[in-house]
């Protein structure tokens, strides 16, 4: 192993000689600086490779002596990783720093060298006083570094930073000397091995050490000085502070953990968690990106510290240090790379006057970094968080679990809010390109991808099939330059290929849903061919989301499931964000998506999926709740309409028709894992039923009042999912059959509707129904498609939709859910309102002159619709095509009440013969048609305005196309039902959180002295707590 002392000699030698080297030219000096950092990196990687392949940790003494007499450095796995991380951050930041360092006095470059060396020293040393020296080296380096490019805000911040730093180092010294006094050594290992520190004096001495390190870790509320620095310093400096510095300090904390007693550890945990919560609360109030990242930094560091302390405190997880290393280390690695990258990126893009959107590469980097920060798969934070949550759940620490997940959600909220804003940029501005400054962020992103992927594949998710979404996204992203239509075909092919690959390993339920989920993906990939051009981003995301849906079906373990689930959430969120006005809806989509996912995660982690006793209890209920959020049950549906409406038209269709079935699948899978039962007992079923019903009614009522077609369809989807939930909740053969039948039907007709509507919007350029009219003549196929779809959707015989209604009411009445049945009847009546309006306002009534040039939709939309119409007719004439597989699927888990007699389906209460109904209706219709035609004398088509209009001739279609606020009387009567209570509730919830954050952030007065006061008060309070604990 390389002796680390060589590296210190190298760093110091280079630093001391730098003024001389600088005389040869600044470039050479900078090359030397970066070269030294690279040497550290090489050494770190070298150590890592040795230690990971089974090498032992090694101690290196100085002056020819070892531990008690001399200072000892240790190279173990954690140290090697720490050194690597520090050097890596230094090199990543170089891309952004180099130019500034070139223009500033040499002191900047020296400071960089010193900071990095100091941090490495903190990581390596085993001597408490030597640790102090290295803390001071890095501190002084940081002080100098903060102001090196002479920006005034940074100068101000640096002064504040120094005050707090001075207090911390004084505390540390006091601690060190009393440790020496009591334990008679400065060496960590010797100090930890004895009992000299276990008395009250020892506790107090260790407390001072700990307090100093905690203050250096920027705990809430004693971190204003740090946040100010993060905000104002050169982004490269902030990156190093947030990444490298935090890593080194956390390792220092980790080192002194053996000295700490349980009370100390509790303090660390409490302080860390409080910091995590408060940092994220305040961060959510930030609109300045760098400061926001600063708050996020302190929050993350708090979490890692808390995890490390908890792991030691009571053997969280399996109790081994392996757990702490994996979780805290994983979180730290994730934080390090993501935050470094984000600081560099934000510095680059926020620095510019340019307010335009980001270039694709920058966008990809920003997306990866943000997603990693939030802990989305497949990044290291995801794996770490999973293990953490699992361990917390195992040990019953629900409050901590809730806090961790809640904080993460807040973080997701503000990070993605920023990302959304940056993605879109301001209209009309040139795209922001990163140039050389992009090297750091892009590299950080790539490292995150590599680390996460390797960690996942070699760890908990070795199944390569589950990685297909990411592979597809990556490949299509790299191919993003090729013509869009080619990519669309590739995307559809990927869905088909994936389907073929997983088909064999899916059970019946999986195969049933695979048809919808993967088929839907392929269908809408094809539909996307309607437009040429590159359509950047669409296909990679569509393909990733589709394959992620497939992966959800194919997952075997809870973690695999959750992995695929979050992949799906992330990909679909970006699809929403891609929409023209997708920013706000995408934010609410991801926040609710992740909120649901976190509930799911908590439940899964607590064993909510294992079919054990836990699953039947409230871990299972948590899973259920998470799925309901994603399904958009009333109350947590607020994310749904906006995101369905604002995403690209094919994406909306995909979301509504296909993706919305993922939670349905999961519900069935959950119930099946419990032996066809719901967690929590019979009441769950009852409550879920009513919830589904409320969703059905609410969705329909909301849909009635929309002016925007896609919103109408979005709410309609909501309502339909409500019926699916309702039927599912019945938990008997008829109910499940109904639920699956409705799901498949919904897929069929909602696909048709979205395809048709996509064509309409593409041709007319508007989504407002009242701005259309009379399109039946221009777009007959689309009209027919919509007509069939709404007949099916409304449940009017003879199309297959009636089967759904018949099954539903048979289930409900058979089950004894009479009131539910009545409300369902009302809800399905309400559906007529919006459906009629949909077809009337768009296709019937008076055509608009401005739309006289409108043509039928492109073939890419029409052909799938024709196909779907054929399928719909087939299953309407022969319901057994659909119902036989479903009945087989549901099997004999429940007492059998449904059975076919020939073409007649018989329930406990009645019967329905779809084929005969179709024949009779067809016959009657033919008869009537024949009569009509036979008596049609001399029919003449009249001009547009040739109507009987109260003795007037209208001149403008606007006066005769009654379409705007179509159901006003209805609103008058029942509008009170559709007041946006859920929206208001969540708004109030958000406002509440925001005002807490707002109150907390009042602590950050900007006064350096107040910050110092916070530091001292923090220490005092901590000491009092120590006494209490």
């Amino acid at each position: 192993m390389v002796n680390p002392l060589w590296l210190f000699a190298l760093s110091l030698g280079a630093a001391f000689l730098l003024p001389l080297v600088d005389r040869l030219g600044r470039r050479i000096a900078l090359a030397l600086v970066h070269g030294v950092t690279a040497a550290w990196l090489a050494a770190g990687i070298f150590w890592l490779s040795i230690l990971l392949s089974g090498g032992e940790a090694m101690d290196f003494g100085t002056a020819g002596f070892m531990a008690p007499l001399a200072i000892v450095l240790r190279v173990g796995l954690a140290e090697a990783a720490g050194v690597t991380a520090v050097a890596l951050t230094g090199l990543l930041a170089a891309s952004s720093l180099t130019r500034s360092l070139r223009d500033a006095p040499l002191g900047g470059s020296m400071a960089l060298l010193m900071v990095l060396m100091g941090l490495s020293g903190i990581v390596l040393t085993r001597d408490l006083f030597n640790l102090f020296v290295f803390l001071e080296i890095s501190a002084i380096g940081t002080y100098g570094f903060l102001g090196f490019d002479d920006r005034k805000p940074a100068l101000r911040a640096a002064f504040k930073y120094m005050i707090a730093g001075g207090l911390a180092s004084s505390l540390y010294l006091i601690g060190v000397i009393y440790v020496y006094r009591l334990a008679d050594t400065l060496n960590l290992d010797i100090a930890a091995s004895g009992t000299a520190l276990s008395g009250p004096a020892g506790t107090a001495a260790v407390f001072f050490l700990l307090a100093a390190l905690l203050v250096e870790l920027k705990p809430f509320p004693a971190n204003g000085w740090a946040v100010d620095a993060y905000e104002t310093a050169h982004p490269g400096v902030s990156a190093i502070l947030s990444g490298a510095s935090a890593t080194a300090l956390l390792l220092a904390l980790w080192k002194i953990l053996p000295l700490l007693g349980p009370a100390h550890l509790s303090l660390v945990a409490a302080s860390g968690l409080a910091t995590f919560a408060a940092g994220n609360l305040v961060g959510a109030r930030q609109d300045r990106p760098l400061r926001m990242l600063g708050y996020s930094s302190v929050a993350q560091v708090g979490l890692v510290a808390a995890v490390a302390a908890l792991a030691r405190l009571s053997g969280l997880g399996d109790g081994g240090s392996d757990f702490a290393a994996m979780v805290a280390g994983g979180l730290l690695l994730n934080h390090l790379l993501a935050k470094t990258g984000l600081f560099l990126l934000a510095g680059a893009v926020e620095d510019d006057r340019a307010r335009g959107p980001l270039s694709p590469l920058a966008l990809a980097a920003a997306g990866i970094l943000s997603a990693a920060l939030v802990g989305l798969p497949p990044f290291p934070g995801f794996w770490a968080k999973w293990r953490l949550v699992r361990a917390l759940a195992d040990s019953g620490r629900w409050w901590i679990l809730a806090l961790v997940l809640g904080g993460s959600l807040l973080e997701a909220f503000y990070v993605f809010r920023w990302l959304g804003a940056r993605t879109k940029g301001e209209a009309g501005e040139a795209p922001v390109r990163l140039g050389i400054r992009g090297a750091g962020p892009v590299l950080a992103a790539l490292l995150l991808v590599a680390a996460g992927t390797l960690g996942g594949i070699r760890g908990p998710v070795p199944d390569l099939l589950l990685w297909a979404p990411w592979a597809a996204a990556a490949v299509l992203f790299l191919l993003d330059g090729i013509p869009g239509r080619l990519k669309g075909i590739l995307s559809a092919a990927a869905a088909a290929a994936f389907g073929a690959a997983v088909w064999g390993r899916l059970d019946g339920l999986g195969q049933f849903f695979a048809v919808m989920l993967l088929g839907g993906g392929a269908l809408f990939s094809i539909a996307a061919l309607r437009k040429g051009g590159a359509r950047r981003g669409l296909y990679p995301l569509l393909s990733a989301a589709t394959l992620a849906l497939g992966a959800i079906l194919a997952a075997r373990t809870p973690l695999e499931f959750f992995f695929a689930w979050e992949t799906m959430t992330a990909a679909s969120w970006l699809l929403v964000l891609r929409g023209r006005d997708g920013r706000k809806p995408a934010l609410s989509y991801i926040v609710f998506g992740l909120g649901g996912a976190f509930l799911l995660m908590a439940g899964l982690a607590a064993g909510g999926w294992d079919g054990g006793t836990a699953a039947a209890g409230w871990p299972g209920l948590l899973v259920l709740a998470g799925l309901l959020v994603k399904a958009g049950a009333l109350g947590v549906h607020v994310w749904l309409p906006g995101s369905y409406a604002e995403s690209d038209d094919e994406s909306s269709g995909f979301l509504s028709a296909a993706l919305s079935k993922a939670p349905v699948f999961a519900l069935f899978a959950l119930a099946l894992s419990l032996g066809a039962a719901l967690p929590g007992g019979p009441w769950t079923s009852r409550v879920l039923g009513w919830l589904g019903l409320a969703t059905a009614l609410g969705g329909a009522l909301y849909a009635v009042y929309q002016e925007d077609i896609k919103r109408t369809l979005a709410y309609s989807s909501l309502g339909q999912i409500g019926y699916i939930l309702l039927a599912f909740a019945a938990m008997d053969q008829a109910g499940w059959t109904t639920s699956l039948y409705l799901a498949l039907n919904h897929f069929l007709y909602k696909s048709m509707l979205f395809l048709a509507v996509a064509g309409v919007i593409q041709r007319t350029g508007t989504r407002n129904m009242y701005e259309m009219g009379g399109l039946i003549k221009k777009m007959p196929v689309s009209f027919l498609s919509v007509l069939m779809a709404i007949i099916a959707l409304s449940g009017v015989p003879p199309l297959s939709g009636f089967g759904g209604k018949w099954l539903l009411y048979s289930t409900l009445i058979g089950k004894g859910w009479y009131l539910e049945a009545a409300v369902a009847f009302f809800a399905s009546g309400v559906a007529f309102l919006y459906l009629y309006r949909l077809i009337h306002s768009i296709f019937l009534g008076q055509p608009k002159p401005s739309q006289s040039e409108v043509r039928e939709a492109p073939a890419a939309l029409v052909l799938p619709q024709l196909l779907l119409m054929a399928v719909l007719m087939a299953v309407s004439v022969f319901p057994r095509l659909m119902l036989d597989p479903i009945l087989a699927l549901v099997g004999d888990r429940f007492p059998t009440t449904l059975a076919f007699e020939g073409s007649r389906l018989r329930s406990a209460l009645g019967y329905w013969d779809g084929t005969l109904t179709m024949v009779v209706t067809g016959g009657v219709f033919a008869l009537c048609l024949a009569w009509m035609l036979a008596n049609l004398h001399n029919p003449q088509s009249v001009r547009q305005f040739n109507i009987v209009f109260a003795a007037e001739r209208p001149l403008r279609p606007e006066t005769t196309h009654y379409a705007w606020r179509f159901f006003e009387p209805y609103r008058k009567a029942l509008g009170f039902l559709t007041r946006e209570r859920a929206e208001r509730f969540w708004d109030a919830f958000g406002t509440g959180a925001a005002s807490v954050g707002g109150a907390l952030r009042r602590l950050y007065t900007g006064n350096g002295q107040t910050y110092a006061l916070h530091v001292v008060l923090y220490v005092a309070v901590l000491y009092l707590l120590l006494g209490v604990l």
Partner: protein
Amino acid sequence: METGILVRVGYALVSLFVITNYGLLLIGSMARISAKVQGRVGQPVWQPYIDIVKSTAKRNSIGHGVMFYLGPVFRLAGGVGTYMFIPAVYGSVLFRNFSDSGDLLLVMYFIFFGQLGMALGASEGGHPYSAIGVSRGLAQMTAFEVPFALSVIAVAIQYRTLDITAIVAAQQGGFWNWTVATNPLAVAAALIAFLGMSMHNPFSIVIAPQEIPIGPPTEYQSNLLGMLQTNRAIFNGAKLVLYMNLYFGGATDVVTMVVKTFLIYFINVFVGQAFPRFRVDQSIRFFLGVPTLIGIASVIIAAI
């Protein structure tokens, strides 16, 4: 039971013929009775026949598009179909119609078939009144469906079936077995709903635009109007038969059927004459108020 398909079609046509004539006469006579009540002479009983013949015989017709033509077809098919799915006379092979296609639920939903088609056809006419009428009609429909559905549910609970034939069968054996005797609340709810369904007063605001010239079917005339008028008779008859089956013990022969349905219809018209019109929002709130409560009560009674 197994009858040749051609024979069944033949029976169905006979049944249809009967109900058509009966429906027309019913409308005619009811108009006559109304007139008498109001002290007018009124139209002849066979006036509906005259209207249809006149319309159908018109030499010219104008159209606004395919859907415009298809609207009345849908409408008439809806009316005929609804009737076809109801067994009109209990135990009669002739009047069994195609009731083996589905149970009560099929009938309830098939009612919408014609209304939907009509609405679409009327809409294509491009007249704003059509749309207004439809919007009002649909809005009101959602409301009166609630007491009706509750009442149907009560019936289903009571007889443990949704099969109309079985429901009728269960009511055989005298007045005290009829639903109207066993669960009068269900019948009350259903009858109030019927007022809305038939768009009689006080729930006739829906067809108010029609009165200016003539409502959702504003643009219709000639043959197309004739079909609508025909449908009115058949559809009315179908609904009355359905009510009779559900609440009034059904009928074992045609005469009973005629008497019972006449009386049911008479009640409605009578009530209709006594009340002023509701606005749409008023009628919605009305239906969701007391009738719904009655319906819920009926369900509770049935369930206990």
